[in-house]
């Protein structure tokens, strides 16, 4: 059964220097509180995996904790660029960032392969694109039944996957609902799973679109109310679109960024 831990202890126990970490949540349920705890603890040399790096990885990259990024779309949704990500890729600030870049379909299938215990996944993708020239995790495979040539993408198996969910019970069974993205696959692909939750409840009530991760498939659960902000948790909060817009000028400027992290992450014992 999953252990119920404080956010501080769960991050300290499960996330280590040099780990490959996936923090998933497709716009919804992005585990910001856990990312801020990683920044406070200075866990570094991370390989970060995520379909849409979003502001969460912009912050971790700008904080200098990331050596490699595996992703498929790196923008601030509806706003523009992720400037910390761009600064790292274009100028090596605050450190060079290695990238392994895919399409969404490719990344989704890399998680599916990882969750399935397979070495790779098959899809109709990447045909004619230059993307395969820049990554060694895309290849081709010939269908043994039809002879059709298909794309093969290497499985991704993070050391630890971190997701945010609405609820867990006292045994660490977890339920998330709304847009559930690729979280089930990311969790089941990982060696260790940390789930932050809005609240611990006595009993989980089945929800439409609900995804349940049994406690025995989860390593640790940590309460983190509003832990997805400025993303959101359906039923608990709405997406803080104004924050995503306000992030643009903060992330454009190295000093403004450092000041923001200092004031909003380091000076808080509990991130919001």
């Amino acid at each position, binding site marked *: 059964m999953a252990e119920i831990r404080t956010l501080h202890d769960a991050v300290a126990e499960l996330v280590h220097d040099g780990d490959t970490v996936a923090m998933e949540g497709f*716009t919804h349920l992005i585990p910001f509180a856990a990312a801020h705890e990683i920044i406070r603890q200075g866990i570094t040399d991370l390989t970060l995996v995520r379909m849409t790096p979003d502001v969460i990885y912009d912050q971790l990259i700008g904080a200098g904790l990331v050596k490699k990024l595996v992703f498929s779309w790196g923008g601030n949704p509806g706003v523009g660029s992720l400037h910390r990500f761009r600064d790292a890729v274009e100028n090596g600030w605050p450190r060079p960032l290695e990238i392994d870049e895919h399409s969404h379909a490719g990344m989704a299938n890399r998680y599916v392969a990882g969750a399935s215990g397979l070495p790779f996944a098959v899809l109709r993708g990447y045909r004619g694109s230059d993307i395969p020239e820049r990554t060694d995790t895309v290849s081709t495979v010939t269908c043994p039944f039809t002879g059709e040539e298909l794309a093969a993408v290497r499985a991704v198996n993070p050391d630890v996957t971190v997701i945010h969910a609405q609820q867990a019970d006292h045994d660490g069974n977890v339920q998330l609902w709304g847009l559930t993205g690729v979280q089930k696959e990311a969790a089941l692909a990982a060696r260790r799973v940390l789930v932050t939750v809005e609240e611990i409840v006595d009993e989980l009530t089945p929800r439409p679109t609900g995804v349940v991760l049994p406690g025995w498939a989860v390593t640790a659960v940590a309460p983190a109310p509003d832990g997805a902000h400025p993303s959101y948790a359906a039923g608990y909060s709405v997406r803080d679109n104004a924050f995503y817009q306000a992030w643009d000028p903060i992330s454009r400027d190295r000093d403004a960024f450092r000041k923001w992290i200092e004031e909003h992450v380091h000076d808080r014992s509990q991130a919001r």
Partner: protein
Amino acid sequence: MTTAPRAAAATEVTPDELMTVNAARALAGARTCFVGIGLPSTAANLSRRTDNPDLVLVYESGTLGSKPTRLPLSIGDGELADTADAVVSVPEIFNYWLQAGRIDVGFLGAAQTDRYANINTTVVDRGPGRPEGRLPGAGGAPEIAANCGRVLMVLRHSTRNFVEKLDFTTTVGHGSGPGDRERLGLRGRGPTAVITDLGILRPDPETAELVLTEVHPGVTTDRVRAATGWELRVADRVTATAPPTEAEITALRTLKNAGRSAA
């Protein structure tokens, strides 16, 4: 007896509005549309409010049949899920719905496109001695363009966006010309129209090269040529797009204002 819809006063309409209205019109008759965020999402939502109220909007965040009342800022805004016919996982939306060929139209934006409507959203070359400029990357586009029945593109017209040679091919439109999609095994028809703030380009049925077929009211073909980074082919008879109707402009502005007040 019907009367012709009243045209909105031309002076009030911006080039971006002309682009969005024409992009929405291009969805007439479509049943399902895989929608990229930004301009494509605005156009698809406008189509639902004008001539295609039954259009099924599919977003890569996993929503089938979203009916948002305001423009979403991101593809994961809660309202897309709350108003959907079904919400599925991201692997499911790409594998079962997109890859299996269930979506009629893919609607994409682009940072750069070329004469064969290929798309770059990955990196731009900023000249010798300078690092590549970083764009967001592929997202869903390569497989949307490969697997939807056809593809519509919407982007602003400038020599920066319409280039002789892409710095990087993220997404294949018509490749290097006729037969390329078949050779690559891309099953949909590929881009059938590129809608800009100056007019509409469509691939020549024989050469697959984009040809200027329509201009917006008041736009000259020379102006479109000047905004294109290659020697643009122009149709023998270029027509003007119909001016936006009052209803179209009102619906578009209502949609955008609703989005703004909620942001």
